[in-house]
């Protein structure tokens, strides 16, 4: 192509302090979330057990502790999943036009899924992405973990499908750059994320998990990394 091709997203210039995201950095971030969640849950669970052993009649306090241990990760997941909840004005008049353009960008399968769920499925080197209006979910190969990224265009006058198209085009231009520009909101188990998704969005997560499992089968646990290097 005669035009100048720039593999890096220009938006990276706005976040020069961030190290470029990679499969390894995202895996490390996921582990950090696991450690953080464990540290948030363990003290409450230990307190509940300890109190019960010391004085069985203290069980109401123990139940409150266990409730805290359950609620804290749920709140994190709720906040994380918020990145793909529909937001902003719906612009019903122009949305069909924007939907047409987005449909042209997506493949047949992804187009149908996006119309049903509001999330566009994109296959990348880092895993499977589910792109919403103001953020995206990433399912690394295997599909057991979901990472939530908050990112979008600032133009509130854009119809929802145009906002998704902006993110899809940026993601396709530079996947690692996209993950760098986006703010990381949450990383955790897919089942926890599923519970916090709107019911109509859950089929997109199921499709993403299926595709992420296929990626792992095709390339093995480290195959995707090898493929990324060879690219």
């Amino acid at each position: 192509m005669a035009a100048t091709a720039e593999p890096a997203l220009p938006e990276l210039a706005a976040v020069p302090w961030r190290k470029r995201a990679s499969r390894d950095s995202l895996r490390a971030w996921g582990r950090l979330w696991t450690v953080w969640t464990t540290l948030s849950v363990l003290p409450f669970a230990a307190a509940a057990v300890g109190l019960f052993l010391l004085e069985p009649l203290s069980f109401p306090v123990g139940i409150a502790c266990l409730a805290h241990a359950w609620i804290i990760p749920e709140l994190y997941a709720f906040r994380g999943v918020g990145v793909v909840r529909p937001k902003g004005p719906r612009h019903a008049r122009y949305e069909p036009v924007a939907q047409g353009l987005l449909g042209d960008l997506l493949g047949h399968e992804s187009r149908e899924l996006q119309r049903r769920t509001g999330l566009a499925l994109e296959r990348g080197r880092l895993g499977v992405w589910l792109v919403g209006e103001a953020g995206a979910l990433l399912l690394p190969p295997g599909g057991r973990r979901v990472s939530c990224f908050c990112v979008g265009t600032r133009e509130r006058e854009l119809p929802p499908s145009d906002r998704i198209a902006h993110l899809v085009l940026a993601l396709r231009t530079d996947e690692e750059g996209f993950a760098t520009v986006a703010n990381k909101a949450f990383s955790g188990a897919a089942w926890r994320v599923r519970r916090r998704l709107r019911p109509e969005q859950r089929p997109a997560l199921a499709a993403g998990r299926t595709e992420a499992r296929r990626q792992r089968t095709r390339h093995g646990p480290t195959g995707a990394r090898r493929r990324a290097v060879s690219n």
Partner: protein
Amino acid sequence: MPRLIRMDHTGHSTLAKWRATDDADFEAAVEAFRRELDAGYIGVVPEGEGRATQVTELPAEADLVIMRRPIAGG
């Protein structure tokens, strides 16, 4: 016929169309493309499922060039 479009509040607007054989049409499209770059838009050529290329000059041979706004972490 190749098209230059901009994603905006109307869904999208067609800014220019050109034929490879018509220099005047293409020059007009190049001017429109530069105006959008100056206004802060980013040019992208979709290349099928999963691929897109950012461009800073209008490629004559591209079927579709889309102007998008920058994105940012929320």
